[in-house]
């Protein structure tokens, strides 16, 4: 396609062809406070729950999220993980391990409150039922066949 054709056929073709029209040009702008800022230093958010911070910085940031404070064994693992810098593999692996423990703690917490999690609902499998019935039926049949096969093998060994 020629440039003339592109300009005709493609909405907005070339509107930002000049680098100067692109918002991130030049790449690094002159340092200045962002539009909307009316402070020299931001106020510090009060720490009201346990917040970890990377040891690559001196303390917590001016603001931070307070969702889901650490709890239980997963919290202990996270507490340990934040003693290592972000460049250490163990930092991230411990956090991933804590995430898996947290899932078990979440399930136990549900059961402790007398709530049995509706896994079918939580996994959104109704979407399969509504939109791809065959795949769900196929998957269920495969699972059923697998379970029957395992049962048959166990009985045979017994």
């Amino acid at each position, binding site marked *: 396609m020629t440039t003339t054709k*592109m300009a005709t056929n*493609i*909405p*907005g*073709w*070339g*509107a*930002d*062809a000049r680098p100067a029209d*692109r*918002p*991130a*040009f030049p790449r*690094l*702008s002159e*340092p200045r*406070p*962002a*539009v*909307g*800022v009316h*402070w*020299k*230093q*931001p*106020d510090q958010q009060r720490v009201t729950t346990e917040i*970890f911070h*990377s040891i*690559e*910085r001196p*303390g917590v*940031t*001016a*603001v*931070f*999220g*307070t*969702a*889901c404070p650490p709890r239980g064994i*997963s919290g202990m693992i*996270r507490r340990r993980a934040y003693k290592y810098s*972000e460049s250490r593999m163990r930092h*991230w692996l411990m*956090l991933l391990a*804590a*995430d898996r423990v*947290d*899932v078990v*703690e*979440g*399930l136990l917490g549900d059961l402790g409150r007398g709530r049995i*999690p509706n*896994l079918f*609902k939580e996994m*959104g*499998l109704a*979407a*399969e039922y509504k*939109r*791809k019935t065959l795949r769900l039926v196929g998957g269920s049949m495969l699972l059923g066949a697998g379970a029957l096969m395992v049962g048959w093998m166990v009985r045979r060994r017994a």
Partner: protein
Amino acid sequence: MLAMTYRGPFRVRVEEKDEPRIEHPNDVILRVTRSAICGSDLHLYHGMVPDTRVGQTFGHEFTGVVEEVGPSVQNLRRGDNVLVPFNISCGTCFFCQREMFGNCHETNPYATAVGAIFGYSHMAGGYDGGQAQYVRVPFADVGPLKIPPGVSEEDAVMCTDAYPTGYQAAEMAEISTGDTVCIFGAGPVGLFAAKSAWLMGAGRVIVIDHVQYRLDFARTWANAETYNFRELDDVVLHLKRITDGLGPDACIDAVGAEAAGSAMQSLTGRMLMVQAGSATALAWAINSVRKAGVVSIVGVYGPTFNAVPIGNALNKGLTLRMNQASVKRHLPRLIEHIQAGRIKPSDIITHRVPITDIPEAYHMFSSKLDNCIKTIVMPHPQ
């Protein structure tokens, strides 16, 4: 209030949660009017992002109406209808002063390498997100933007992440008039990157994916030349053959950690998680782009390491550019494009669901059911 909460890999629930409160003088509380599910939410949903805690509410693409205002807020009032960039930025740190709002150093205590993002694990600040009826928005005088005239609520929600990320991907590709640009990934970000490449004067825009309905959409909506890599024996070889043996001038990775297409990458990156996601698209981008070309990366990867052909990047003299989108920096220009009718971002929305259907919406998006490209959550009954 009702909010989506994470329960574990592939499991989310909608439940009653305490409403957020002002925790810092420059906070506002928003009544969420639209919230989108982003492709990168799927990395959380699949349990791939470290420090994703059970009970967290996801959602970093949302619009809303200001419900409560902190004592130091000057630029917003109760009742203002705003769109909120996915980055939380202080406006005054070293990086914000240079308009790198995706790299703010004063909003995420948990990781220095990562800026703060709403509802995106504690690795990105530990904030609850907008897939809820209400959300806390810190530094309300910096991030949120009143939705301008001529921009619908649904166009606005696309301006919080997907559209600026796609635009920045094209911008980082340093496109010159007539360039051939290849985009890996026909999801929302890839589609916006394709549209933006044309805005920057590209001569040819190629999109690679394996989800046929998305490729069909890329061809009709973004005027792209599309290829399904499942139908190609060797993607890199194909790209070389259709570009006079040199390769595209620029390649964009708009896929990130969950790329399909290489058994070894999928095994080590997605199943065993011994690397920070499957880097198939990035490897293809590096290997197919022409010598001295540009590879622009907006696909998200984890914090550890990935197997990528960095030696080829060196030998080919490539420029690699990447970042989280600096949304606030791009918004004025992107809104001009919407108002001028050059793009209608809400065209990519395929599904609108009530908040109670979020588990099904995640499953549908994750499994690419029902020709799903972009899902919008309606937190309050319409």
